[in-house]
């Protein structure tokens, strides 16, 4: 009876999550023992946890690469290359954010253990999002992630901006998860089960037209699009990005996006694949709107965090185009999303690392003009920022180009020529606003001369992100192979 539901393998399959949880709890305890200036040990502990999780995930990958995936917990949990790929991405991003945070929190004077614990817990939530195959699991994981984000956003309790951001994020998040839930409930009603596979089978059998399933799809997607910040569900993004602690902005601009796209792909490609004609239409419209709003709004921004908020939205637009292509059964579309996310994670974190360096004792450094003359003051960060911006624009040979390349390719292959032209047109607009920052950095006179905040952690982050941004750009071969392996489960 017992063994009817659990193989011992089941718990092995979630070892990375368990590890992170354990370390999170450990940090909560450890925090009491640490004096004010030893808080960095929390970060170290978190890093160790992340390290273990990473190693375990790599082992999983070696185990499962081009094999059939492992399903556990009675089929509500699946460990396939797709899940592992995204989990790895999430874990690494979390690790980098931990590295970013230490110095920043000291400056903000909010260096508490809970911060790292919550980071790890939300990481757990995201990882489960990546491998849930059941509405309940997906929902719970999503909520876990979301709640941690709310708290982290409001983590600087003294600051009203942080507070506001958290409030908005929370209200909208709760509201959207209400929508999501409503959609899930309908989906459950249609599918007669919370398991995506079963739902897919039932959906395929239903007569068309089928307004009910559209309701389910739309409300569900509204919830998910909210998480990935797609227009018109994007509006929380700039506000939250601006208000949240910069390290958290960096975090929520990367990890949750990755996880949310994982869940989005899982649901769209597995769960409601029979409705692809409908959701392709929907995604197309949303993607175009998202690119438009993101790219255009970014131009007029003056606060750099807000600026990156809109640039994120723009990138989400590109990613959604990948889904549009995928709806025609084109695998490159999903490969594109995987690679794009990979590239995006690193270049965006790198850029944010530089932004965080701008935050110094009693210098906020969040305005674009604060970067003026960075080249004269700090050539290193300036050049790095340049590279990250080039990558974000999609200029070869940087990671961003490879991502865009696959998006364009998938669009061409599925004969969405208009979308392709639109996408490249927006790439030009993107150049225009990203290079506003370049101009400020390289061609304006410095405003202040206070040296940038630096720390070993920041240096490591910059090193890693730079290396990967360039490596993916110059020698993308292995990454492409991995990405293809990652999305294989959907197409085998």
């Amino acid at each position, binding site marked *: 009876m017992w063994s009817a539901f659990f193989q011992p393998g089941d718990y092995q399959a979630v070892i990375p999550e368990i590890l992170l949880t354990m370390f999170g709890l450990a940090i909560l305890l450890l925090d009491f023992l640490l004096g004010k200036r030893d808080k960095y040990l929390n970060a170290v502990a978190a890093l160790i946890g992340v390290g273990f999780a990473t190693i375990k995930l790599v082992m999983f990958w070696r185990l499962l690469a081009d094999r059939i995936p492992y399903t556990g917990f009675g089929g509500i949990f699946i460990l396939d290359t797709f899940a592992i790929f995204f989990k790895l991405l999430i874990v690494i991003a979390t690790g980098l954010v931990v590295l970013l945070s230490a110095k920043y929190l000291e400056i903000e004077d909010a260096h508490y253990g809970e911060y790292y614990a919550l980071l790890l817990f939300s990481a757990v939530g995201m990882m*489960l999002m990546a491998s849930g195959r059941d509405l309940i699991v997906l929902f719970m994981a999503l909520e876990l992630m979301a709640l941690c984000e709310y*708290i982290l956003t409001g983590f600087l309790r003294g600051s009203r901006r942080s507070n506001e951001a958290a409030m908005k994020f929370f209200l909208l998040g709760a509201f959207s998860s209400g929508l999501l839930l409503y959609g899930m409930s309908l989906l459950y009603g249609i599918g007669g089960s919370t398991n995506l596979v079963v739902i897919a089978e039932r959906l395929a059998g239903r007569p068309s037209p089928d307004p009910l399933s559209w309701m389910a799809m739309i409300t569900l997607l509204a919830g998910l699009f909210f998480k990935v910040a797609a227009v018109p569900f994007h509006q929380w993004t700039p506000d939250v990005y601006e208000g949240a602690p910069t390290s958290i902005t960096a975090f929520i601009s990367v990890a949750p996006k990755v996880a949310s796209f994982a869940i989005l792909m899982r649901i769209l490609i597995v769960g409601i694949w029979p409705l692809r004609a409908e959701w392709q239409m929907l995604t197309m419209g949303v993607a175009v709107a998202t690119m438009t709003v993101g790219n255009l709004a970014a131009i007029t921004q003056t606060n750099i965090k807000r600026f990156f908020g809109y640039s994120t939205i723009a990138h989400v637009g590109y990613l959604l185009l990948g889904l549009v292509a995928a709806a025609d059964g084109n695998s490159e579309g999903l490969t594109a999303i995987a690679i794009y996310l990979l590239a995006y994670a690193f270049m965006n974190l790198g850029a944010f690392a530089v932004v965080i360096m701008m935050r110094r004792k009693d210098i906020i450094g969040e305005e674009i003009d604060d970067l003026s003359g960075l080249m004269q003051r700090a050539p290193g960060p300036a050049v790095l920022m340049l590279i990250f911006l080039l990558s974000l624009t999609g200029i070869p040979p940087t990671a961003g180009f490879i991502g865009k390349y696959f998006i364009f390719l998938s669009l061409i292959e599925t004969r969405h020529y208009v979308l392709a032209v639109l996408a490249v047109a927006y790439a030009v607009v993107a150049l225009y606003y990203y290079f506003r920052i370049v101009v400020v950095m390289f061609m304006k006179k410095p405003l202040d001369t206070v040296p940038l905040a630096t720390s070993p952690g920041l240096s490591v982050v910059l090193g890693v992100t730079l290396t990967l941004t360039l490596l993916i750009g110059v020698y993308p071969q292995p990454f492409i192979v991995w990405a293809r392996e990652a999305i294989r489960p959907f197409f085998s």
Partner: protein
Amino acid sequence: MLPQIAFFSLSALALASAIMVITRRNAVHSVIWLIVTLFSVAGIFLMLQAEFLFAVQIILYVGGIMVLFLFVIMLVNLDVLAKQQQFNRQWALALVTAVILLAELGYGIYQGRSGFTLPPAAASPPTQGNTQTIAMALYQNYMLPVEIASLLLLVAMIGAVIMAKRKLE
């Protein structure tokens, strides 16, 4: 005949009290009305043979969450609030939108009703009581979500502490 009466009265009560919830000037009244709603929803659960859920609804919601709400309301109680404008500027537009939403959802469901009126899938009649079944479901099929839920509650606790505490050590 009886079920119909029960259903309609309960739903009427639920909806009416819900509307009261969102229209009351005083937050405390809203809470009270919300409790009424929750009770009637609980009644609906009972009609649907979800006794355990009925219990949970009463104990957890009414006994737990609502009390929490009351505490907070007391904590942040501002009599100015009671005098202020209760609805924001966009309320009319919002109302219209919501009505249309209702219409659309309703239409969708009404279209899809055929799927539900036909005799339900002949599942095996429950061997043990509802509570037992749920227990089996939770601790066998849904072990993983339960664990997530535990983590979720832990996080909620931490969050509440961080947010509500005057200052961290």
